[in-house]
């Protein structure tokens, strides 16, 4: 059961796109962060059940967030949504504990497909 969601992206438009694409069954509060530091504050304060995370961000990037969560042994499922589509970016993110990687621009249904595959729906 997903009780709260965190969407992290420095672009307001991207956050809106992600929120609009969330499964309608998730009638849960959505928290938003525009950089990695804000994201970690929300993780500590609100304990979201799933995180949608961009990689290229100011202050602290997505790799930094994943590394911090790994260090804290925080097992919250993280789905990376990034424009950095290099194989190495994917491997680094998965290596740091991301559960899935969606490439930008997202296709319709990408988020739904991934959360279903991860058993979050």
């Amino acid at each position, binding site marked *: 059961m997903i009780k709260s969601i965190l969407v992290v992206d*420095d672009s307001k438009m991207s956050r809106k796109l992600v929120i609009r694409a969330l499964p309608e069954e998730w009638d849960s509060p959505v928290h938003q962060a525009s950089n990695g530091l804000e994201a970690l504050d929300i993780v500590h304060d609100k304990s979201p059940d799933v995180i949608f995370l961009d990689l*290229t961000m100011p202050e602290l990037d997505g790799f930094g967030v994943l590394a911090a969560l790994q260090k804290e042994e925080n097992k919250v499922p993280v789905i990376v949504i990034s*424009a950095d*589509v*290099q194989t190495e970016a994917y491997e680094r993110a998965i290596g740091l504990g991301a559960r899935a990687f969606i490439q930008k621009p997202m296709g319709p249904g990408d988020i739904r497909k991934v959360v279903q595959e991860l058993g979050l729906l």
Partner: protein
Amino acid sequence: MTRLKDQFNEDRRDALQEVVNIAMGQAGDSLAKLFGTFVELSIPKFHLCDVTELNQVLSKNDAYVEKMTILRQPFSGQLRGEGIALFNNSGVNELASLMGYEGEVTFGNEREMLLDVCSILVGACLNGVASQLEISLSYTAPTIITKDTTIEEFFKPESIQWRYAMIMEICLTLEQYDFTSNMLLFLSEDSFPPLMDKLDHMLDEL
């Protein structure tokens, strides 16, 4: 100019920055495949200025202090302008090993490498922008404008054909190599209305 800056409100800037970010992700991937190494991408920086302010805007970036090789790739269609690729001189020297050249690098080899990289970088970025905005663009072959020059020496307002510059500034660096490339996208004044229409269309769909 103030009116133009006002028209580019926060939402439009954010949307354009994200469009360029996604396009640069694709350009970075193309370069990573060519070089066989990870390409670190910066967050695109957006500037809208009169060309007389160009040096002042760009001088805030320390990367532009050193001497560079500068290439240009014009584009036209529903948007008109040019992509400018800037390579630090030490990075140009690294290109040969990155691209698998062995032995002495001739003037011709170096020229060919620079044009190839510029074409991939600017072409992939503009293709990414065009496909997201659902517009068509055509490209002119890239050319090397100058070598061993600084930004300040190069961007003299009288030598720029545009009155206003909308600059998307993006930096790519390669791990383990002293290679940095900055890309600037300039748009003509008559491109602003269609661009804003396209961005508004994207924003309306949210």
